[in-house]
């Protein structure tokens, strides 16, 4: 039996829908057609097999169970949570019932960064004693941001631990990575916007003259911090001898011998808008950089190197715990935040054109400075200035972070 010539064969989509309709609601004409048309029987069989294959393949992707009532309530509460415990945030009363436009505790809990090595290498590059803005801006390196809270004690311990790296192997600064002094020197030289763009490898953005806060000169002084590569190459014998001499029992597997942690730091452009009044300390700095890449050379993976570095004696337990808690540590750069000096908040930060990006807002406890960092379009943008956070957010809303 074959369909009549006037009867058009249904397409695969109709057969697919027919399969999902179930016997009770399925179109009887299609059933008749299927029983009569060999071509459609073939099509139907193929559609059925594909549907079954997809169902069986996708079924394991689902969660083991739906969220519980308590989990739903927690998720709902997190939307409302306007303040983080360590970063008191004052929101306007009118907005209190509207969910905050930022990630709350989860972001913050996960917000504990990248590999310790990256964090601490970043810390090594931070010019000591620089102004508040420079301290913030020196850390604009990553492709995803997270906070690692550090106390003065843990900062000191981290610094000391990493100063011992040279006792475990060699720390190489080839390919133009500047010393702190050289970096500071490089930051003194002023370049054009075009030259800065060339050096960092993308179009550096600047504020339109009308968008520069009142009291600041509309034309920025532009400088570039050169990037480069740092290698920490482990010498197993040297490391064992060092720890033995100190009476510490540290396992240094043989395969780590000669392995290196490699950190590629991008060049960063800094646009400094300064006060027209030479006696004023008012300043706004806009920093822009590419992303850090980190990896290893030798017989160890990045995971193994990270685990080894995190287990080094001397690192503060709370810092290690924060770093180990990271979910996406391969792509997340920890921003060490000294909680005794700086309050922080993870939140959505709006830029020009209404585009919002997840980032960090920081404020020094003296109330004279604030900073923000976002990752946008594969780059890191940072703003720091001698102004209140709300005024800084206004400036950011007028900054075009462009597109990828």
């Amino acid at each position, binding site marked *: 039996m074959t369909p009549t010539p006037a009867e058009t064969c249904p397409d*695969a*989509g109709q057969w697919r*829908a027919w399969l999902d309709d179930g016997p009770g609601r399925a179109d009887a004409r299609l059933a008749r057609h299927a029983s009569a048309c060999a071509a459609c029987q073939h099509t139907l069989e193929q559609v059925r097999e594909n549907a079954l294959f997809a169902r069986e393949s996708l079924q394991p992707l689902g969660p083991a169970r739906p969220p519980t009532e308590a989990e739903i309530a927690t998720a709902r509460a997190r939307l409302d949570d306007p303040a983080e415990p360590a970063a008191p945030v004052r*929101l306007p009363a009118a907005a209190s019932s509207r969910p905050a436009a930022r*990630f709350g505790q989860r972001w913050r809990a996960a917000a504990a960064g990248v590999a310790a090595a990256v964090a601490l290498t970043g810390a090594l590059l931070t010019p000591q004693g620089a102004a508040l803005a420079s301290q913030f801006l020196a850390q604009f390196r990553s492709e995803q941001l997270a906070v690692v809270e550090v106390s003065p004690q843990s900062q000191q311990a981290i610094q000391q631990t990493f100063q011992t790296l040279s006792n475990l192997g060699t720390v190489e600064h080839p390919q133009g990575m500047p010393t702190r002094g050289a970096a500071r020197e490089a930051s003194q030289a002023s370049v054009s916007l075009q030259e800065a763009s060339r050096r960092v490898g993308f179009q550096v953005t600047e504020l339109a003259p009308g968008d520069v806060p009142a009291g600041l000169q509309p034309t920025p002084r532009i400088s570039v911090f050169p990037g480069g590569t740092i290698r920490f190459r482990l010498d197993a014998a040297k490391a064992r001898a060092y720890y033995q001499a100190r009476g510490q029992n540290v396992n240094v597997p043989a395969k780590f011998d000669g392995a290196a942690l490699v950190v590629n730091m991008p060049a960063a452009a800094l646009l400094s808008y300064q006060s027209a009044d030479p006696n004023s300390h008012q300043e706004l700095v806009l920093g822009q950089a590419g992303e850090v890449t980190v*990896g290893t050379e030798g017989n160890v993976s990045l995971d193994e190197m990270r685990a080894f570095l995190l287990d080094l004696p001397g690192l503060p337990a709370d810092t290690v715990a924060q770093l180990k808690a990271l979910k996406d540590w391969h792509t997340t750069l920890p921003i060490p935040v000294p909680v005794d000096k700086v309050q922080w908040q993870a939140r959505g930060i709006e830029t020009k054109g209404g585009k919002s990006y997840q980032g960090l*807002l920081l404020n020094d406890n003296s109330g004279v400075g604030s900073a923000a960092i976002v990752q946008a379009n594969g780059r890191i943008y940072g703003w720091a200035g001698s102004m209140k956070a709300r005024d800084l*957010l206004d400036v950011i809303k007028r900054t075009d972070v462009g597109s990828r």
Partner: protein
Amino acid sequence: VLDVADPPAPQTRPAPRFDASRFDALFRRFYPDLYGLAYRLLGNRGAAEDTLQETFVRLSRADALLERPDAEVGAWLRRVCLNLGANRLRDERRARERLTRAGRLDLAAAQSDLGAPASLLLRAEERAGVRRTLARLPARQRDCLLLRHSGYSYAEIADTLGVAIGSVGVLLARAEQAFRDHYQEDSSS
């Protein structure tokens, strides 16, 4: 005190209307199913929760949308959730690619879970394979597959993807065919 308040709205602008009880009702109605959808797309609880958080934050800003019928809001939420999830996956993929290109990421080691039993690793690898295949599909096909196999009706899929309900069958059939072809291609390579 860290003052992060947005600047006060100009006096001439009417105060935003935000219906908190309506928002709550929508959250409770749609969150569980959206969680399943986001989890299927992203593969882990944290990413799914973060994506849903951002999705509902956006809903909270869309005052006019809150006044629309549930079905319309649901379609909008699914669309936003899928878009945000896809963006997240894309960003993660690009990040991995950059690191891999630079020879800086040992993916095999990074993705392994040395402490897990072999059977769990196998299942995890199968799920990863399915997600890799999904990532190769055109966005609309991928979304259609995820929606259908998350249990959404043809009408809901049509509303979410902005297509006629009569087109869902053909979109789904093509998506399933493409999925099978790509999956088998990946498995044999």
